[in-house]
Structures are given as C-alpha cells and as structure tokens.
C-alpha cells in the first residue's frame, strides 16, 4: 500500500471510484428547506429545545408538515438523543436515521448521507440538523473542561497528547499551521484579511454574532495571540444555536415553495493516518489531504472545476483552516492562500471567489458548519444578506484537518 499516493502525486484515480452515471445523488437530490434559531452567546435553552425550533422552521420553510419527515441525520457529537428528539417532534416513523462522526468534518456528510437515503428510496424527506450550546455550555474547544471529568486520556492516541497539556483542537491545528507557514515562508504580518472580510460580511447579517462589531486589519493585529500563529480573531466564535436543512429528491423538490437547490456533488473523505487535527504522522503535515480528496471527488461528480464555482462556504474553525482549503480545492496554488486573501478584494462579494458570505464560523456563528450549508442555500435562492449576483453554483466544505466532507450545490 502506498499511503496517500493520490494526494502525494496529485493524481486522483477516477477508475477507483464508482462511475458518475451510477451516482443517484448528483442532480437527483435537493435541499428544499432551511431553518435556524437565533445565534447567541447564551441561549438560556438546552440543545433539545434549539433543535426542535430549527427543525420546525426548516419543515415550515419547505412547506411540509412533521408527518412528512421520515429521515433524520445528526452528528454523533450532538448531545440531543434521537429518541428524545423524535418524541418532541412527534415523528411517527422514521424510516432512516444515521449519524456522522468527526464533529465539524461531518457537516456536509450529513447532507450527503441524507441525499443517499432519499436517492435510494430509504426515505422521502430527511432532516439534517445541528444544535449546540458551545458558548454557554460545555465547550469542546477549551482545555479547562477536561480536568473536571477525566483522569486519563480517553483513547490510545490521545495518550500521546493529553499528558502534555495538548488537548484543544485549535492548539492541535496551530501545530500543522505553524509547519505550513514554515514550509511556505508565510509572513504573519500578511495575515488577517480573511478575518477582516468575514467581519465585514457579518455587518450586513443581523443574525451574526458579530453584527454591529466591525474589525479593522489593525484591530486584528492587536488581538491577543492565543497560540502562535493563531490570534483571537483567527478563531471561530463559540455559539449557542441550531440550524437544520431538509433534503429530498429532485423530482419532489420541483413542487415545493422555494426553488430547489440541487446537490450537484457530495463527497466524504477519511484518508489514512488522519486524526482529529493531530494527523502528524501523515507524509505531509503542511496540507489538508482530506479536503483535497473531497474536492477531487466533488469535481469528478459534478464535472465542474474551481473556475465554475460562484461562491464558496469553506469551514473555518480558524482562519488558516479555511484559507489552506483554497489551495487544496484548487482556487490558488500551494502556499498562495494568504496572498489570495491579501487586501480582501478577491473574497469579497464582488470578488473572484466570494467566501463565507454570512460571516462564516468566525463572524456569523459556529453551528458546526451546518450554517454554511444554509448560507449556500440562501445564495442560490438569491436571499442572502450579502448576495452574490447571479450565483448559480456554490461549494461547501466541512471541517479541515480531520475526516471531512463537501458539497457542490447549484440552482
């Protein structure tokens, strides 16, 4: 076995993948409803409550009733138990449920798994949701929570990190980011534009956590260093909230209240030697092979390329996590993403590649990437707060640096 040979040689093997004409997801499935709660720093409600509201709104948005729903897709990380959720929503019989692990890496896989279910008749209308109280409740991303309930690392591989005070996803990511900066000679003073542009987007989005709180490039560079090279404003915004989408078949979608947003491609990738942000024993640490695989598969299925994409929603747990994806997805060359974002014009709403137009996870909300899917849907419906003119295709990705997933959506 040649480990990650396709990635190392940048030669994607179409012959290893199922033929595109056998793919029942491509163009045959669609997103027909979206819903979300208010995004806040403290919802004063639990995740079950938030999930119910977002799902109800998505069902309403699709012009359906709860009785139509027969599929449910959740992240394994979600604290809401499925039976409890089903009991609150009053869904009589779910014909299909599945869960996706890998945290934020599963955000688009949720949609993909739902699409596979409707494409094969396993269900008619599948709800995809994520609810979390990341701001006010238990924080996945913080080191201080662990001491309260752990005495030892929970798995074999974490045993090589946790005893060394190395137990937060952002610090794990800082490790590969630093290596990437080293290999490509990135200068810290050139960074920050990504965060600034996303904050600009948030100023037009009243749902965004950072609505009404603009950020200048100077303000960015004055923000505290969390863990070099990551500053406070490189990092996503802990949020309480929930978002949901409804997936069905393309033919059902035609007769629904909103113009359908078709799934032109859906992909998931878990490359070998990948861990959750600690994939330090892959041949290349300064890169995101999972994003490259997802990108290649999305382009193979859709027949589109980077030049065909009108707007991108790239999962940004921290700025570099989104920016390096620009390289892996072919929007710029290796080591060029900081230049790509320099000054911000290319990623603004009238730029070459409008990026994370709701403010993304940095400035809108951190709903584990399901809010990037909803923003892509709004762009293709033409109802976004920062609407890209004539947007017809959107790419959406899930968490970088761990097994991930992605979608290409089209009008």
């Amino acid at each position, binding site marked *: 076995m040649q480990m990650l040979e396709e990635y190392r040689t940048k030669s994607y093997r179409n012959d290893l993948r199922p033929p595109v004409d056998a793919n029942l997801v491509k163009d045959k499935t669609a997103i027909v409803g979206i819903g979300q709660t208010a995004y806040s720093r403290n919802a004063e409600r*639990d995740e079950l*409550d938030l999930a*119910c509201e977002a799902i*109800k709104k998505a069902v309403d948005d699709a012009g359906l009733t709860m009785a139509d729903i027969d599929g449910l897709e959740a992240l394994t990380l979600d604290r809401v138990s499925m039976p409890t959720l089903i009991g*609150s*929503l009053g869904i009589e019989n779910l014909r299909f449920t599945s869960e996706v692990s890998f945290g934020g890496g599963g955000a688009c896989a949720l949609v993909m798994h739902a699409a596979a279910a409707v494409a094969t008749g396993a269900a008619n209308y599948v709800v995809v949701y994520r609810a979390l109280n990341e701001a006010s409740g238990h924080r996945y991303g913080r080191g201080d929570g662990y001491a309260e309930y752990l005495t030892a690392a929970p798995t074999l591989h974490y045993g090589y990190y946790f005893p060394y005070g190395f137990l937060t996803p952002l610090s794990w990511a800082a490790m590969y980011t630093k290596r990437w900066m080293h290999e490509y000679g990135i200068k810290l003073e050139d960074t920050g534009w990504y965060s600034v542009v996303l904050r600009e987007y948030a100023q037009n989005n009243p749902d965004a956590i950072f609505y009404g709180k603009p950020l200048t490039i100077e303000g960015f560079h004055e923000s505290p260093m969390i863990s070099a090279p990551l500053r406070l404003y490189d990092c996503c915004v802990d949020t309480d909230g929930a978002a949901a989408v409804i997936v069905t078949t393309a033919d059902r979608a035609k007769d629904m209240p909103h113009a359908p947003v078709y799934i032109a491609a859906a992909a998931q990738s878990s490359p070998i030697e990948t861990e959750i942000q600690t994939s330090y024993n892959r041949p290349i640490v300064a890169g995101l092979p999972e994003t490259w695989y997802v990108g290649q598969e999305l382009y193979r299925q859709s027949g589109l390329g980077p030049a065909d994409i009108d707007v991108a929603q790239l999962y940004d747990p921290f700025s570099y996590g989104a920016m390096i994806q620009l390289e892996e997805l072919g929007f710029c060359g290796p080591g060029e993403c900081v230049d790509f974002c320099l000054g911000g014009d290319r990623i603004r709403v009238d730029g070459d590649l409008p990026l994370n137009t709701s403010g993304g996870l940095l400035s809108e909300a951190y709903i584990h990437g399901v809010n990037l899917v909803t923003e892509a849907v709004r762009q293709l419906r033409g109802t976004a707060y920062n609407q890209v003119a004539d947007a017809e295709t959107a790419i959406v990705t899930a968490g970088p640096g761990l097994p991930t997933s992605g979608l290409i959506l089209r009008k």
Partner: protein
Amino acid sequence: MTTPGEPEAPTVPHPALWAVLYRSSTPFWEAVARHELSLQRCSGCKTWLMPPRPMCPRCQSAESEWVPVSGRGKIHSWVTYPESPHPAFEAPYSVILVELDEGVRLVSNPSGIAPEELEMDMPVEVVFEDVSDDFALYKFKRAG
C-alpha cells in the same frame, strides 16, 4: 497508570443527583423539591408531556403549562432487583411504573410496600422524600 479493564474506584453520587440535565424537566424537579407533583401539558392541544420536552409531538406547539396533579394512580408494572447494581440501593428493592389518574406514567419506588406485596393495578398515591436540601424524590405508597 490507568488500564481500561480496571476503572478508578469511583466516588458515586446518588443517581438522583444525575437528574435535571435538560432544562425542559427543571420545573418538574423544582416542584418535586417543594413536595408537589406537577406535569407538563401542551397549552394548545392539552396533551400531557412526560417526559417533559420543549415541543408538543402532536401539534408542534412550543407553548406548555405546568399543571399540579393529584398524585394518585395505580401500578402498571414493576420489577424487583434481587441484587443491587449500585451502592445507593439496598437489595432487594423494587421499581414501579405508576399510571397516574391523568394517564401519564412515572417510574418510581414503592414506599412502605414490600416487593412481594406488589400487585398489578394496586392503587397508590404519591409521597415525597428529601434527598438533599434542594432535591427530593417522589415515591408511591398504598392509597388510603
């Protein structure tokens, strides 16, 4: 070092103190602490909601009310543990499923009824036992 087969000797709280993790059920437990039994009911279609929840499964309304109930009912089923799975419980002990007059069912323990005396449809009524200063449990005794 920790090995998976041999867990740390745990300091085990009473399982009652694991409760009230969801906000939906907080009013229920607050009432129990006041020695009252109060159940959640949908404001729209008047469906009883037990366990408590943020949305009514019948009409999807998010509005609900808390209604004091009599605490009278009858035994719908029960089990008896001949060996205790937890140090807080002394075996043999029974767990009963009570169907309240309102039709809602609650899991509980019998109060003053020995395991061998339990019978299907036995009329029972609620009693309360304090576990801590701000936490109580509801149990059921033979109805008078």
